[in-house]
């Protein structure tokens, strides 16, 4: 597992029945403890500046796919910091060969933090005070598609 949130391993196009339907990349949880899926607040993905809405991204943990709607209520499925999450992005034709700039935001709630701080959480913006053990919300990485 790499220190960066966006991992270099796992970045590739997704091919289904001979057709490229999108691409995927992996992220690690930059938090000192694991979270239930309902705690996650997915944000927006930018690929080479192109905006991809969170509804077009499926989260996949240990081989199981979860839609945004499913995640909202799921407080039983747990993501441990040592497991990587695969993000599957719908994009007919996938990404072209060469470099791509990925920029992705997500964050998570914590039951032990005061509710007014939780209400202010924005996956696409950093919190007012940066706490390293909660990680940064928005992470960027430049990676190659072969």
């Amino acid at each position, binding site marked *: 597992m790499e220190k960066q949130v966006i991992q270099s391993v796992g970045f590739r196009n997704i091919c289904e029945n001979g057709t490229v339907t999108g691409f995927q990349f992996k992220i690690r949880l930059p938090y*000192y*403890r694991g979270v239930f899926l*309902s*705690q996650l607040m997915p944000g927006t993905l930018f690929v080479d500046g192109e905006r991809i809405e969170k509804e077009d991204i499926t989260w996949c943990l240990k081989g199981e796919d979860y839609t945004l709607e499913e995640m909202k209520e799921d407080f039983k499925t747990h993501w441990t910091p*040592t497991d990587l999450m695969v993000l599957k992005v719908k994009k007919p034709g996938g990404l072209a060969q060469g470099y791509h700039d990925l920029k992705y935001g997500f964050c998570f709630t914590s*039951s*032990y933090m*005061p*509710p007014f701080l939780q209400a202010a959480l924005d996956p696409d913006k950093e919190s007012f005070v940066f706490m390293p*053990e909660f990680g940064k919300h928005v992470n960027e990485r430049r990676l190659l598609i072969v």
Partner: protein
Amino acid sequence: MYTYDRKGPKRGVALYSYSAEFGLTKTLEDCFEDVHDMGAHGIEILANTHIENYPYPSDQWVENWFRLCDKYEIVPVEYGHWIDSHAVRGRELTTEESVEMLCRDLRLAHRLGFTVMRTKMPVINEKLEPVTNWREIIKGALPLAEKLGIQMCPEIHTPSNLKGEMVSEYVKFIEETGTKNFGLNIDFSVFRTVFGEGEWKDPAFTPNVPEDIIPLLPYVYCCHAKFINMSDDFEETTIPYPEIIRILQEHGWNGYLLSEYEGADKYDDGYEVGQTLRKQHIMMKNLIGD
């Protein structure tokens, strides 16, 4: 299974301290070995972090857990977990759902040999007051805790005060229910008297003197040996450790002091938290005389 029979305050480490390294440059076994190097015998884990496939680890993982405890002479002391009543946005979990979550942790803690849990309550305001139904949640889990021999302990941490309302509410609950399965984990941040120049200090915080812990000792099943700054001659410069440990010894307190390093600098590139922990263990070993 390994046992450590020493009476009085004993040394241990909260694996939370390794947060910046765990999973990247350190495995669970590396952490165990580091603790063993320090001659400490107690460990605290964070269930949601250190248990693979939490909350349902495989039998194979559990088998390996006990292998590590034996190999490195480690006692599973405290199981850190959260009552995540605010896990779903837009609604609070019902008391039943929270109890179910808590009981799942009780069973897992017991399966791994733990006897104390650091039970983190969900909070409702900036004073970090727990949810209003915390008594019902704890009461719902008490019969199971009693059956499994586990003590659930909220952590009392700065800016809370040992003489404050939150602590007195917990003590009142213990006295009214007469339970032996709910108590306190005292984090030594409450004793901190020294702050660096320009360092942020919560305006709500008033430090306790070490003597303030005495009336609470019957309910204290574990302590977080919080430390802020270890000097190069192995003294903690912000918390009166010699007095605290002397009081614990004089009052016959028996339990683990689990080192917890919370400094954000542990995330800096090249920072080695194991060395910081070792500094503190040199001090504690000398004070305890183990």
